[in-house]
């Protein structure tokens, strides 16, 4: 891989992974804030208002960072990936402005109203603007996932003689079969992360013996929502997202699972170390026939291994494999953790089980890792394709941008984002330290 291509890839990978840290929370937390806000509207219980207003303050910081780190990504399709944009802009570009027009305006427009508070805009309008923000951020997720889905499984296009593609069906692009479960799995991941954050903060307050009423509500929310979301992350969203990979991206599946040789009754490797040079999985622990069952619902089905394809079509196996196993491993831990929490809640011991509260608090970063690992699988596993089956990654870069320029801007982003990260942690820690303000009266 040339230096320039590597630089373009690193910059996009870094900027998108840093950016994504924020939507992970925005999409999920927006939902929970709208949920608390609705409960307050219906029950008039002030606990829900206090919770919504507390989380709104953290949401605002998180949202601002999501916006400022997100703009570079829209620009980067042009700055660093100009040939990709020129190649397919009329097709994948169908989804891009819709994110702005249908989602960004909604969430950005109504966030100002929501942050202005109930007393300024009135109870109903405050509630509606919260819904607008939540709905807008969830909707933006769909359009960007649909853009990605087109790169994973291009649809609705025809090839140009000149070498590009042109649109044959808008609806095919909007309702790409790959997009639906990819989106559901992504959103579920975000909701799960938000549940963990809510639970982690609540656990902190319980352990520190502060803001107890808010803390109990938070931990309860986290455990109940967390059990459901951890399980739906696996099934159906994870399973059906995986089904798209089975159907449309056999090399990605093989790399994810470390399957080098095509096999009938292929086993599932719980653990193992892929060795691309030896084309083998070292020290594996297998569940016999299970990969065939997961992929095709039939223990006798044949699953294609990497060896079926020429090596220049293999994605980076190790990175894809380990990212996938980190994601699934963590996802399994989340299910177990939340089931324990639910059990403790049922036995009325949740708020006093300090060991569990410590675990809830310390596992807050892990859904973030799992979400990011999943995207690494998605993007690295698609290599060497930029658009699967159509355009190779090195063919999509901007050749008029030198490697040195990209290295320079990459360092600029690294420095700026390091500072943003520190500022974010500082400000959110302060807000958590201050705690929910239970003295703000509700609107009359």
């Amino acid at each position: 891989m040339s230096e320039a291509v590597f630089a373009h890839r690193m910059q996009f990978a870094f900027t998108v992974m840093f950016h994504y840290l924020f939507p992970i929370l925005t999409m999920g937390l927006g939902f929970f804030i709208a949920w608390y806000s609705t409960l307050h509207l219906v029950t008039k219980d002030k606990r829900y208002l206090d919770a919504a207003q507390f989380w709104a303050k953290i949401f605002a910081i998180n949202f601002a960072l999501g916006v400022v780190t997100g703009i570079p990504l829209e620009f980067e399709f042009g700055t660093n990936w100009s040939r990709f944009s020129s190649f397919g802009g009329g097709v994948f570009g169908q989804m891009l402005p819709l994110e702005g027009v249908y989602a960004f305006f909604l969430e950005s427009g109504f966030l100002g109203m929501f942050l202005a508070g109930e007393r300024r805009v009135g109870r109903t309008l405050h509630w509606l603007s919260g819904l607008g923000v939540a709905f807008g951020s969830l909707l933006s997720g769909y359009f960007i996932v649909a853009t990605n889905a087109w790169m994973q499984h291009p649809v609705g296009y025809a090839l140009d003689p000149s070498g590009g593609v042109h649109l044959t069906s808008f609806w095919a692009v909007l309702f790409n079969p790959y997009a639906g479960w990819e989106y559901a799995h992504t959103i579920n991941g975000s909701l799960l992360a938000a549940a963990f954050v809510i639970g982690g903060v609540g656990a902190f307050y319980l352990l520190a013996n502060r803001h107890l009423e808010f803390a109990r509500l938070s931990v309860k929310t986290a455990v109940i929502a967390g059990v459901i979301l951890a399980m739906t992350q696996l099934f159906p969203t994870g399973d059906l997202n995986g089904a798209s990979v089975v159907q449309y991206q056999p090399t990605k599946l093989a790399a994810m699972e470390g399957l080098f040789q095509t096999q009938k009754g292929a086993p599932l490797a719980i653990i193992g170390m892929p060795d691309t040079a030896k084309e083998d999985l070292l020290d594996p622990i297998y569940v016999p026939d299970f990969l065939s069952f997961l992929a095709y619902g039939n223990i006798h089905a044949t699953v294609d291994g990497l060896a079926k394809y020429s090596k220049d079509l293999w994605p980076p196996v190790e990175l894809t494999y380990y990212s996938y196993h980190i994601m699934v491993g963590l996802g399994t831990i989340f299910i177990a953790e939340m089931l324990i929490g639910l059990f403790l809640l049922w036995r009325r011991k949740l708020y006093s089980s300090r060991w569990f509260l410590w675990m809830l608090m310390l596992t807050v970063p892990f859904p973030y890792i799992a979400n990011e690992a999943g995207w690494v699988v998605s993007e690295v596993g698609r290599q060497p394709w930029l658009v699967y089956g159509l355009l190779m990654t090195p063919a999509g870069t901007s050749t008029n941008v030198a490697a040195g320029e990209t290295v320079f801007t990459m360092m600029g982003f690294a420095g700026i984002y390091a500072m943003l990260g520190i500022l974010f942690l500082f400000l959110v820690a302060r807000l958590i330290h201050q705690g929910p303000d239970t003295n703000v009266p509700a609107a009359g």
Partner: protein
Amino acid sequence: MNVAWFWALSAMLTAYAVLDGYDLGVGMLSLWVARGEDERRMAVNSIGPVWNGNEVWLLAAGGMLVVSFPRVYASGFSGFYLALMVLLWLLILRGISIEFRNQVADPLWKSLWDAGFSVSSLLVALLLGVALGNVIQGLPIGPNGYFQGSFALLLNPYSLLTGLLSVAVLAWHGANYLREKAEGPLLAKAVKWSRGLWWWAAAMVVVVTIATFVFRPDAGRNFEAHALAWAFPLLTLGGLALGLACRSEQRDDQAFYSSTLLIIGLMGSAMLTVFPNLLTSTLDSQYNLNIYNAASSPLALRASFIANIVGMAGVIVYSTYVHRTFRGKVRMDSGHY
């Protein structure tokens, strides 16, 4: 469809210039016009609830450019590489300065973000003007449809003049916005600055108009061919004239419309100096990227036009509603800004 998309993009960019224009204007002025915590907070609060939504017009326009004229997006964004990256970093600084300023009740913290807000707003306004100037003047686009835009290339006499025009007009626009929103000492200062900046804006309009014909001799061709094109220069003059009439305090509420008209007039005129080209080649006119050779396919243009127009109709309705909720003088009761 190609022509319709040209005007749709022009409208989006004009709306951006009018809306985020006052955010940038308030930002530019804030360090010098607003003194003391109360005035600085008032300035930030005047745009706080709406700045983010205003910025989305630029993002939506960018996304629309991808789908409508992908070759222009590809060529322009990669060609302007370093300048765009610097613009991105400045937009990051502007955004977080507004959002973080009120998070910590410490004078040093606030001073830091006040400076960040002001300097980034000024440089964003300057760079956007420079970019537009280069679009009007032309760029060394080669046969492959790409160019390399070094800082030496992009910062040239004409583009620096358009950059200064952008700063002048948006600063005046920001002052007019503060005339509508501010109270007390800040209002008085905003009125004074609005009067003073009118002269600078008017002077730059004259200078840049002349310079445009010097650096782009064919700039008038669309105006010669279509009488309707003169609507935009007339709006420009109308905006300036209204601005002159609004010098008195009784006209505080109307001053904002004068700079709005000026911006609409300038943007429309700028679009008409280039139409139907989007990126003009200084090497050879056959390398121009225009609304025909740089466009996506007819179906792509039609489908995206419909999808986006429907969405924008909704946006205009609820955005107007949101802006109306915050109309009138700044209320300092929201804790967030």
